[in-house]
């Protein structure tokens, strides 16, 4: 069930037996919930991993420097306030 498609639930036979969301993480993208995006400045990052640990989604991957999965980041801002070196900034996303 890793196909990147939203499952259509139009009739009873479409439903799985249990309330299991099929690949929900893949199709249920939450980027639209965000009104700004966090951007990591690799030159200030000390690789402490705090942003990765605190991200509730989790939408930050522990690369060096860390990378943000903008398909799922909801823009909560926790990483920005927790970063000890202020390496993450709030970037306006007005479209």
């Amino acid at each position, binding site marked *: *069930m890793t196909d990147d498609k939203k499952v259509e639930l139009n009739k*009873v036979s479409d439903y799985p037996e249990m*309330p*299991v969301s099929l690949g929900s993480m893949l199709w249920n993208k939450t980027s639209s919930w965000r009104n700004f995006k966090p951007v990591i400045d690799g030159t200030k990052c000390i690789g402490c991993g705090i942003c990765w640990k605190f991200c509730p989604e989790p939408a930050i991957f522990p690369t060096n420097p860390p990378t943000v999965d903008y398909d799922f980041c909801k823009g909560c801002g926790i990483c920005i306030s927790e970063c000890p070196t202020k390496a993450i900034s709030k970037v306006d996303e007005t479209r």
Partner: protein
Amino acid sequence: MKQVMNGDFAASYGAMSALVKYVAAYPITPQTLVVEKLSELVADGEMDAVFSKVESEHSAMAACIGAEAAGIRTFTATSSQGLLLMCEVLHWAARGRLPIVLANVNRAVAPGWSIWADAQDSISQRDTGWMQVYAEDNQEVYDSIIMAYKIAESPDVLLPMMINLDAFFLSHTSEVVDLIDKKDIEKFLPPYEPKFKLNPSEPHAFNALTSPDHYFELTYKMHLAMEKAKKRITEVGVEFEKMFGRRYGLTESYRIEDADTVLVTFGTIAGTAKETVDLLRKEGKKVGNLKIRVFRPFPQEEVCEALKNAKKVIVVDRDYSYGFEGAFFTEVKSALYNKGVMKPLYGMMAGIGGRDVSTGTLKEIVAKAEGEDPKNPYFIGVKL
């Protein structure tokens, strides 16, 4: 291989024979010997499973839910207050469509504190979405647990199943039980392969928030599964009989073809009722017995078919729905009404709190119903 064993051990061996891989249980009162034996079998290496000793019955079922969701065949056992403490997670197991099997030793609910036979504990869990079987003897306890996995794990069923056995009358009673060889079990019971399971490489969200847009459909699917389960229980019973020679269905009729009065019974009372039928037949009375083996899904078609020729029907309940009547009585009445079958029905309360139901008690019940119309429900033998 035949052995003499009590009903608790029959349940333990049933789980072992069904190749259960995970058991979680609370080990203290009101727990029974079922899990003591299982912990022994696991510790001695006779049973290839993991045994988790947990801090409550609620946790036991929660642990089974976790293991079952990971695709492992699980089992637990409890009794009376322990089953009641499980109530919340019983719903989780059923709506999560996890085919867990549970052995429940039917005991009266406290207070007054009781360890004796009474179906109040499981009857009060009627609406949790669990299938419920009531066993008549220790062989049936053992066989039912093995069949339970085959039924519950069917892709069109996927519902948990509770096998109930009367406290003392089975749990502490030693009888001959024929245990099935592992190689025959493997032919009968395929390995458990769920469609969805907890698996990091194929992530799903389990038991997620379900809006009114979808919850209704899931409930309807449970209704379909319960209907399907009736068919599966019968099919699996036929298959079991072919392989092992013992027949189990949704109900079991005994001498009802020409019976004027039919007793409707469940659990150990059903066996004693068959004995009573023979005694009354010797006295010239046309009496029969209908044993209801499966309470959920309720076999209304079979019940109506079996009772269609009876002039009087007496339902014996070892449970009570406070403020109305015995639960089996309600169900039988409702099933008959649904099929448009009308006839005199009597609801007899007997054996509550472990009081012995002998052939004498059942004769008294039949005599009562044959006399002037008793008030429903009638509490037989109550010291007024």
